């Protein structure tokens, strides 16, 4: 498959994916609503901050942080790892392999096509964020401009890590367990549960260079206007570096895995 066919087919793949997301809108909604961890954490920190600010965070500051977290999580989410592992186990991956388009490209279109619907659900979160904690948001338009590539990078990194671990299902049956472990570690180190700057110095220093930060915390930091322009730029470069790395790894692993793939039940 050449790059050109992929580019030509992509818009149609997106349209199909969007139709799929709309068709299962009730399920879709429920999955979205089950992303409520940031709000649970906000409840705790709001109670803590009643007695005065913690670090750089007042009660409003926490509200802004966790709403931004929720927003980034809603918009950058994917589910490809569950779909891949299921299709590999059930053998239906064979159907995808028959099509003249790389399965990973098709997966990416399906997952990306859900973003408009996700945005609709994320709108109220944006509204509350803007209304309730607008004073906490960053004021530098350059950082806001950088948010776009940062969100795209976060989405890509999430998707690629999922694909990478999903590809491992070609070797092991328990790839989903591996992904669960990744989720657990990432919940802590990506800033999903706790703002990274509230960790003890030693933990924080490790967390800021690991890839987890770029899945979530980095776009949130941009929304809150935390980094300087120069820092933001180097962070963006680091994020896309991780994206490139994940892309290469996924491609290599996919090729190697496919060679030993024999569809079940055929």
């Amino acid at each position, binding site marked *: 498959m050449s790059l050109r066919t992929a580019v030509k087919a992509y818009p149609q793949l997106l349209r199909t994916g969007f139709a799929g997301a709309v068709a299962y809108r009730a*399920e879709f909604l429920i999955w979205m609503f089950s992303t409520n961890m940031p709000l649970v954490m906000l409840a*705790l920190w709001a109670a803590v901050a009643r007695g005065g600010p913690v670090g750089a965070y007042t009660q409003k500051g926490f509200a802004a942080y966790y709403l931004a977290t929720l927003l980034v999580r809603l918009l950058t989410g994917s589910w490809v790892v569950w779909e891949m592992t299921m299709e590999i186990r059930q053998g239906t991956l064979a159907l995808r392999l028959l099509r003249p388009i790389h399965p990973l490209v098709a997966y990416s279109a399906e997952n990306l096509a859900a973003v408009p619907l996700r945005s609709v659900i994320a709108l109220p979160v944006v509204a509350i964020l803007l209304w309730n904690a607008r004073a906490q948001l960053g004021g530098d338009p350059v950082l806001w401009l950088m948010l776009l590539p940062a969100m795209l990078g976060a989405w890509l990194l999430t998707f690629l890590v999922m694909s990478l671990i999903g590809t491992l299902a070609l070797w092991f049956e328990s790839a989903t367990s591996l992904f669960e472990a990744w989720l657990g570690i990432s919940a802590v180190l990506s800033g999903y549960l706790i703002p990274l700057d509230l960790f003890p110095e030693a933990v924080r220093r490790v967390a800021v260079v690991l890839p987890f930060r770029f899945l979530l915390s980095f776009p949130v930091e941009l929304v809150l206007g935390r980094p300087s322009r120069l820092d933001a730029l180097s962070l963006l470069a680091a994020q896309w570096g991780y994206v490139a790395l994940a892309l290469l790894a996924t491609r290599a692993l996919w090729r190697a895995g496919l060679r030993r793939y024999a569809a079940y039940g055929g």
Partner: protein
Amino acid sequence: MKRALAVIRAQLRASLALAVQYRLDFVVEGLLALLWMGVTLVPVLVVFHARPQVAGWTFPEMLLVLGWFVALKGFLEGAISPSLINVIEHVRKGTLDFVLLKPVDAQLLVSLAKIEPWRSIDLLGAAAIFAYAFHQLGRWPSAPQAWLAAAMLAGALLILYSIAIIVVSIAFFAVRVDNLLYLFQSIFDVARWPVSIFRGTLAIIFTYVLPLALMTTYPALALLGKLSLATAASALIGTVVFAGVARAIWRASIARYTSASS
């Protein structure tokens, strides 16, 4: 009654036999349960690094709430949800007919169809958290306090199960909502904090409407000897009423069930 017990025993044996076929899962899932327990603890560690007390709870007291949360979550995801997710599958495929045909109460039959015994590691983890918390407190609960906590725990389990049954009953009316149970599982995360964390409307919701916070707060208060008998008694009465309502909803749903075929 005797027959019901025999059925329960047989069901438990069957689902255990099914689960132990997957031995590797024990190791993998056990390790994962430990990891998630750690993830649950991290925020509390960070918070109490910044503050000696949160909403009137000290660190060891908060650990007691978390201990109950870990135990209840293990029970919810290891014993309640797997079976009830099966029910939704049955409704969708129409195979619930086979369950209904059996001369045993259907609710009893579906509720124990599948368990994940490796989640018992959550119970061990909860025990470790309790041991550490009481070591920090420097005292252990008296026998009456432990009994009261056990009673509150039984109540919490019953509420948890009843909510799950109600959620599943919804599947009879709206078949496409098979992930409603996952939604409930994620909402249950609220129960990791004591109810006094919440203010205003949320406090009312999590106390009276969806009594999640009480499930972990009351047993913890009982262990600390801070729960009055009157509160405990009214909570238990409320629990029994709630379970009765859930049972009624289940029966009404079963009565409306028309099978997926024909």
